[in-house]
C-alpha cells in the first residue's frame, strides 16, 4: 500500500501566555492508503492538534506534513481550502452541520463547492444518506435530528466530495453507545466501499476496538503505534 500521509519531525509549540507548551513534540508518522486509523490518548495529549495539521487546518511550528503527495506547509490559506475541498472530508465532534440547510442540502453543499451539477449532487446526497440510514430524513434540518443522526449526516457530508482522506475528531464523543456502534459500523463499511483513508482521534475504547491501526499519543509524542508492533 502506498503511503498517503507522511508527517516528519512535527512540532507545534504554543507560547501565548509566555509559557511554552509543546502540543506536538516531534512526531514522525506514515499512514497508508485505505487505512482505518485511530489516534488515541488522554485529553490534551495532542491528538486533535495532530489531526488539524494533517487536515491543513493548522500550521506546524516546524516539521513537514505531506498529504497525498502534497506538502501542506508550502500552501497558502486559499490553496489549503481548495485542497481540503477536493481531498479531505471532516467529521467534527459536535457535528457542525449548517443549521439552515436540510440533511440533503448539507451533504450537497460540499459537492456544490466542487462545482458539480445539481443532478449529480442530489443523486449522491440521497445515495449517501441512504447508506448512513437516513433515507427517510433527507429533508430534515439538523435541529430536527438527534445527535446520532446529525453525526451520520456529517459522515455523509465528509464522504460527499469523494475525498481520499476522512479525518474525524472524536466523532463519537457526544453519542450514546448504540449510536456509536451504529456510526462505527457505517464508517467501516464506507471505508471499504469508498476506499477512503480514515484517520480519527478518540479516547473511546469502542472506537479503538474497531480501528485496524491504533496510534497512542501522549504529551505530544507517539508512545505506541500498532504499525510498529
Amino acid at each position, binding site marked *: 500500500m502506498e503511503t498517503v500521509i507522511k508527517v516528519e519531525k512535527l512540532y507545534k509549540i504554543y507560547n501565548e501566555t509566555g509559557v511554552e507548551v509543546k502540543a506536538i513534540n516531534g512526531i514522525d508518522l506514515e499512514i497508508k492508503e485505505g487505512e482505518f486509523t485511530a489516534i488515541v490518548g488522554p485529553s490534551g495529549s495532542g491528538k486533535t492538534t495532530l489531526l488539524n495539521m494533517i*487536515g491543513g*487546518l493548522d500550521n506546524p511550528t516546524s516539521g513537514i506534513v505531506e498529504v497525498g503527495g502534497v506538502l501542506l506547509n508550502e500552501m497558502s490559506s486559499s490553496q489549503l481550502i481548495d485542497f481540503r*475541498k477536493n481531498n479531505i472530508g*471532516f467529521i467534527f465532534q459536535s457535528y457542525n452541520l449548517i*443549521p*439552515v*440547510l436540510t440533511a440533503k442540502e448539507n451533504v450537497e453543499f*460540499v459537492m456544490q*463547492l*466542487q462545482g458539480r451539477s445539481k443532478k449529480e449532487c442530489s443523486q449522491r446526497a440521497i445515495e449517501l444518506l441512504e447508506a448512513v440510514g437516513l433515507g427517510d430524513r433527507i429533508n430534515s434540518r439538523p435541529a430536527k435530528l438527534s445527535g446520532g443522526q446529525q453525526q451520520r449526516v456529517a459522515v455523509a457530508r465528509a464522504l460527499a466530495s469523494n475525498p481520499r482522506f476522512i479525518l474525524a475528531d472524536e466523532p463519537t464523543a457526544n453519542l450514546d453507545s448504540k449510536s456509536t456502534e451504529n456510526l462505527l459500523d457505517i464508517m467501516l463499511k464506507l471505508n471499504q466501499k469508498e476506499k477512503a483513508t480514515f484517520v480519527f482521534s478518540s479516547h473511546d475504547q469502542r472506537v479503538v476496538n474497531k480501528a485496524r491501526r491504533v496510534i497512542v499519543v501522549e504529551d505530544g509524542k507517539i508512545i505506541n503505534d500498532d504499525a510498529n508492533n
Partner: protein
Amino acid sequence: MNYLKIAWRNSMRNKRRTIITASSVFFAVFLALIMRSMQIGSYDNMINNIVGAFTGNIQIHKMGYWDDKIIDNSFEFTEETKQIITSTTHITAISPRIESFALASHQNKSKGIMVAGIDPTHENNFSKLKDKLINGEYLNQNDNRVLISEGLAQYLKVSVNDSIILMGQGYHGMSAAGIYPIAGIVKFPSPELNKRLVYLNLKSMQEFTSLDNKITSLSIRINDDKYQHSVINSLKNQLPKDQHEIMSWQQLSPDLSQSIEADNASGIIMLAVLYIIVAFGIFGTLLMMITERIREFGVMMAVGMRKSKIAFLVFCEIMIIGFIGLFSGVAISAPVILAFFYHPYHYKGEMAAMMEQYGMEPILQFAIQPDFYINQTITVFVIILFLVMIPISKILRLKTINALRS
C-alpha cells in the same frame, strides 16, 4: 450554489434580530424621507407663496431700479422686448407691472401699501390671481377698479364696491392720486403680501403714475427653477446690454433664500446625526450576527468554502435585511407623504399666529420629488454597504483553526 437561498434562510434564522436590524434601516429611511419631504415641502411652499404669487423666478427692471425703487426707473415694454422674452425656452408666463408705494385710505383709516399695476390676463396666467379671489370679481382689461388684499381690506374696513383713495408719487415727482372702487378681495397665503397689496389695471396705474406705456418690472415664471441660470444668461445675451437688470428670485428675496439655505443646512446636519445613530445600531447587530457564527464560518472553510464566498454569503444576508428595511421605509413613508402633499395640515391657534408673525403660511406642506427618494435611498444603501465592509473584512481575516475553536 444558491447563495441567495442560504442567505435568506440565515436572515430568517433569528427573526427577532432580523426585525430589529431591518427596523433600524426602516426608521432611518422613513424618518429621513418624512423629514426631507417636510423640509422641501415647506421651502417649496414658501417659494411658491412669494415666487409664484408675486416676484416670479426672474424679474427684469431698468438698470438701477432695485437699488433705487422709484417710478422714474421704469422702462418701455416694447413688442420687440416682449417677443424676445416670450420666445425664450422654459419661460411659461410673464407679467408686466408697475410697482410702487402709496398711501391707501378709507374714511378715517389709512395705511402705507404696495400698489401693483397689472395686466389682468397676463397676471392671471402668471400667478393665478383669479383663484385667490375670495369676494367680488376679477379685473377686466379696461377696468378702473382695484383688487385689494384681504388683510388690508380688514384693516381699512372696506368691502366690495367700497372705494379707496390712493395717494403716491408719479413720474418725475408728480403727485399721484385717485379714487378707486373695489372690484374684489384677494387672499394671499403669504401674510406679508396679504396685509398690504392693492392691484390696479396696468392702464389705470400708468395713468395714476403718469407713466406712458412704461413698466417698472417684468416678472417671469419658468417651468423649473433649475433652469433659472440658463434663462437669465439667455435673456442677458438677447436684451440690449446695460439697459436692464435681470435678477433671480434669490436676489429679489435674499431673506427667504438665506433662511431656506440655513434651514436646509440644519436639516442635513439632523439627517447626518440620524444616520450616524442608526448606523451604530445596525453595526452592533451585524457584529453580533457575525461574532456568534465564527465557528460556523470555520466549518465552512474546513470543508472547502473560500473566505471570499463566505463573505459574499454574509453580504447577501445583510443586503436582504437592508433591502427589507429600505423598501418598507420607502413603501410606508410614501402614503404618509402623499397624504400630506395633497392634504397639507393647517396649523391652528397660537402656532398659526406665530407662523404668520414670522411671515410664513401656517401650513405643513410635504413635497414629492423623486430625487430625494433616490438620494435618501442611496445614502442609506451606501451606509449599509459601508457597514457590510466591517464583517466582511473580519471574515477575510479569519483563520480556519481559530474560527473552529471559537
